[in-house]
């Protein structure tokens, strides 16, 4: 089937799904799935078959001809969108039902379809004006999805913060596209690498897309939005929506000339995001907030790859750039998959217990083994452990970075710290996910809610299993997915050099390791159970009656590391030390604020608000002063006008 027909089907199905969203959930789901399948097929076809699909129609929107284009790079992102969009839709059928959410379930479905459609449009549009329209529609639909549960003030605040940040990014893109249009004379997009005067525009694109991608100092909206959105929405936000920012950066760093420093800045921002993202994650005690900070981390890893590829572009495209980019792009998929999986798992926990607070959870593996298993797999994948997918992409990035070091160029000055900090990020992520899995799923339930948890139904489980399966598949047989990555890399700046990595060997190791690990685990379990197992209480140094509250907490677990990062995390500690011989009450709690938001953005905001208050005080209702303003305006304008006129005449 040709790409046109597939995309048309997808579009129609998406449109029809909006119609069915309110009254007919099943119909909606089938339409969404048809749309997802069709666009996935189109993406896979483009990635496998090569070539670029283009459609230029005579039909205009806003005075511009409609121009769609699907090439290797956009197809790469479209495939991810289709997978997560379809999976999330299945999941939401059980997670956000009409029975539980009578007011928001219907709109939620409609917005979901709208958001998928607008993201697809972002990927397809090859006209700056239409790109902006699709971009902004996607941003606004995401806002309504985040704030589906509008009853809670927290949700509304998170949504508003998202909206504001997103609009700031959009306005940067206004500037970007307008300046691009002025300099090229049209809104058409496409490769224009041979026009060096366009290079400075990259900085605007970096700000605009970086805000959406959640780069470190620009990530302020991300944690609260991801935490407060319904979980299937968090999954698509983290899995796909922030990747749209990455898409923008990859797309326009490929199409436009990039400034010499561009790659360096992107790579440095990537490194900073990676390390600090995970550091902030460690300080969290809200399950979904923690996952949200890991999105910052992983976007950082992706951008390390992109940054080095951009540096490479200024060095004549050596192979290490392509490798790093390949790693980054594969990580786009991988992060989409495992972060989607983790958010769906977190949603399942939330659904079963009603809380995201890790200190109220624990021991959930017993009640929800499927969720625990899938989440554990996702945790291993995001910690970049072999044989799963996260390792494959990070490994590719490492290969690129090591080769960059061995290129003995100035780039080594960045590549070496990047390698070291990437390793540190990996170890920190591992620590963080040991904490999450251990505190949430292992041990003993810490609250009544966690005790009475229940496993989710087949739709939620199926969605998680599908994503788990994909995580394993990319880990074990990356060679199957590799041509797609290669295609996207080649598409990036049309360098045909190709990118090669010993993936067969790695895949072999991964498969052998997976088989052996499974075998050894089963063997040991069999060996142990054959003898019979005696059960006893956990050893607590002789204390015979351990309680759930004596377990290690998330805060203590991460305490050593958060102490190292206290300079940036700025944790707020409230401590009431035990006093007296028989201390009645003692407590200690620690909260890691969103430092950039609370220490930088909010003070800046309060300066603006002070200014606003001062200015508003001028509107005090006394008409005499209003006439003074009028007269002052007159005087200042006359001074200006006569000054300009006299300077002009001279």
């Amino acid at each position: 089937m040709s790409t046109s027909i597939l995309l048309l089907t997808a579009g129609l199905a998406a449109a029809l799904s909006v119609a069915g969203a309110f009254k007919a959930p099943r119909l909606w789901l089938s339409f969404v799935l048809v749309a997802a399948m069709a666009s996935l097929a189109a993406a896979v076809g483009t990635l496998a078959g090569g070539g670029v699909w283009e459609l230029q129609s005579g039909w205009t929107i806003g005075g511009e001809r409609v121009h769609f284009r699907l090439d290797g790079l956009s197809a790469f992102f479209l495939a991810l969108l289709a997978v997560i969009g379809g999976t999330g839709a299945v999941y939401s059928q059980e997670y956000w039902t009409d029975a539980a959410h009578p007011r928001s379930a219907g709109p939620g479905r409609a917005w979901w379809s709208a958001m998928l459609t607008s993201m697809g449009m972002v990927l397809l549009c090859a006209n700056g004006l239409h790109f902006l329209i699709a971009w902004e529609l996607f941003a606004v639909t995401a806002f309504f999805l985040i704030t589906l549960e509008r009853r809670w003030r927290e949700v509304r605040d998170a949504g508003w913060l998202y909206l504001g940040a997103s609009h700031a990014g959009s306005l940067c893109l206004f500037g970007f596209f307008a300046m691009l249009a002025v300099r090229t004379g049209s809104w058409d997009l496409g490769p224009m690498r041979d026009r060096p005067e366009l290079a400075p525009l990259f900085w605007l694109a970096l700000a605009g897309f970086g805000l959406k991608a959640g780069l470190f100092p620009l990530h302020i909206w991300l944690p609260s939005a991801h935490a407060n959105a319904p979980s299937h929405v968090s999954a698509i936000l983290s899995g796909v929506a922030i990747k749209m920012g990455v898409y923008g950066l990859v797309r326009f760093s490929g199409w436009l000339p990039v400034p010499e420093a561009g790659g360096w800045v992107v790579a440095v921002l990537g490194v900073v995001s990676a390390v600090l993202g995970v550091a902030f994650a460690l300080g969290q005690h809200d399950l979904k907030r923690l996952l949200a900070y890991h999105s910052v981390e992983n976007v950082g890893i992706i951008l390390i790859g992109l940054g080095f590829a951009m540096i490479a572009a200024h060095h004549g495209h050596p192979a290490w750039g392509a490798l790093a980019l390949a790693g980054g792009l594969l990580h786009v998929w991988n992060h989409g998959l495992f972060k989607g999986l983790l958010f769906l798992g977190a949603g399942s926990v939330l659904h079963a217990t009603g809380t995201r607070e890790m200190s109220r959870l624990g021991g959930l593996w017993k009640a929800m083994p499927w969720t625990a298993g899938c989440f554990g797999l996702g945790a291993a994948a995001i910690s970049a452990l072999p044989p799963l997918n996260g390792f494959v992409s990070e490994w590719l990035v490492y290969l690129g970075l090591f080769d960059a070091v061995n290129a003995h160029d100035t780039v080594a000055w960045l590549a070496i710290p990047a390698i070291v900090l990437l390793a540190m990020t990996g170890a920190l992520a591992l620590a963080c996910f040991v904490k999450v899995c251990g505190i949430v799923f292992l041990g003993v339930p810490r609250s009544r809610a966690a005790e009475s948890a229940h496993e989710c139904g087949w739709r939620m489980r199926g969605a998680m299993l599908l994503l788990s399966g994909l995580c394993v598949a990319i880990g074990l047989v990356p060679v199957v997915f590799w041509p797609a990555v290669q295609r996207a890399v080649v598409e990036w700046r049309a360098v045909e050099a190709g990118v090669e990595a010993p993936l067969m060997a790695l895949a072999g190791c991964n498969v052998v390791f997976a088989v052996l690990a499974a075998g050894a685990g089963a063997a040991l379990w069999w060996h142990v159970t054959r003898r019979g197992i005696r059960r006893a209480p956990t050893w607590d140094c002789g204390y015979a009656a351990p309680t759930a509250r004596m377990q290690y907490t998330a805060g203590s677990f991460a305490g050593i590391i958060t102490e190292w990062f206290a300079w940036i995390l700025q944790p707020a500690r409230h401590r009431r030390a035990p006093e007296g011989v028989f201390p009645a009450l003692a407590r200690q709690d620690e909260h890691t604020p969103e430092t950039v938001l609370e220490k930088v953005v909010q003070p800046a905001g309060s300066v603006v608000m002070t200014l606003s208050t001062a200015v508003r005080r001028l509107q005090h209702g006394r008409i005499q002063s209003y006439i003074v303003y009028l007269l002052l305006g007159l005087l200042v304008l006359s001074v200006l006008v006569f000054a300009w006129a006299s300077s002009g005449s001279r």
Partner: protein
Amino acid sequence: MKELLVILAPFAGAIAALAWPREGTRRRLLPVVGAAHAVLTGWLLVDPPAAVEGSWIGFDAVSRAVLPAVSLLFLVCSFYGLSYLRLRPERGNRIFVASLCGLLGLLSLSLQAQHLGLLWVSVEAATLSTVPLLHFNRTGRAVEAAWKYLLIGGTGIALSLLGSFCLGYASLVGTGGGDLTFAALGREGAALSRPWVLAAWVLLLVGYGTKMGLAPMHTWKPDAYGEAPGIVGALLAGGMTTAAFVAILRVRQVVDAAGEGLVANRTLLVLGLFSMVVAALFLLGTPDFKRMLAYSSVEHMGILSVGAALGVGGLVASLFHVWSNSITKGALFLSAGNMRRAAGSSRVPEATGMVWLTPVSARVFAVGVFAITACPPFGPFFSELQVVRAASAAGQTGAMFLFLGCLLLAFLGLTRLAFSVLDGRPRRSADASRDRFRETAGILVPPLVFLAASLWLGLATPEWLRGLWDEAARTLTYPG
């Protein structure tokens, strides 16, 4: 003579309203006048009258590009007025209907005026005709608003009269005979006395700028828009300001012809950006959603002014924005009016949870807020983007970034207030005090039509409309 009909028809309507004996049926005049005006405007567009040299009234390219917007605005508003007045049987509507019709006639006159004095007379008269409209609610707050509107607007308009005289004197000191038609003044061009031209420019800018609501002359605006019925707000924000803006454009053309176009552009740019900054700061803090619309209007007047400073491309964008702003503002004012009536207040602690009280109006309002803050695919997105593009094309990168920054602050302020009005719980007092406000089709369809029009304007801007704007922009710049 056709162009006179479009002015006289509303006046006839006004006289008919004054003479109409029955209180209950007088409101039906509104749609009749609106439709007649729209038909006449359409006729003028299809079959433009020949320009008469030296005529004081003419349906030139500029009026062609703007008058249809005002006509459309009035037409839709008139249907809203029909339903609105039925909800307000306790108020006599003789003066109200007559003033609305008169306002339309005077706006049509001022948009077609080719003579500085006539322009002034029509704008001043339009100002006076809106006073009874502002005063319609007869509350103390309405009186206060009308007083401030009158005194500040009056002072401003007096300054523009002084400016008009200065321009006339510039011609008198130069070679001309003090002919105040724009064509004559433009022909004199560089022969005009520079100091008097500059003085005239400042005075006229401040004067008509007061009517437009550019900061720091905007002080009457929040009071007037906050207290007037929604329909009046819509007509003021979309019609009155447009007339004043067109006046400034025409004067700018003369100043340009006199060789001071650069200075004029700079002044417009500075004043526009200043208005945007001030409006953004106000928007961040105001707790009243009708006053919010007023500040938003100040901001958009700033956008118009910035666009007018950026050459032909900017002028086209400005004219486009005149359309998209007035139509989108129409949706906002009408839905805000509904919400205000339902809640009994337009301030935040009193008016919350509007999604529950007025579900449709609240949603229209929300969509309108997104539309007016340049979210696609509505009209303002396209026109503002065009302004941004024009700024970049004119090399005003710094101004472009300031412009974008103001848009951001305004967006933050608007959305924050809008959502705190829409969300939350409705106040019980508002629910119980009056027998619950019901949204009827008559007061819902007009704002929806405005939204649809805004959408149409953005997504499928008709070529003929673009042609009108281009032509007007070209005539408004001094060739050379």
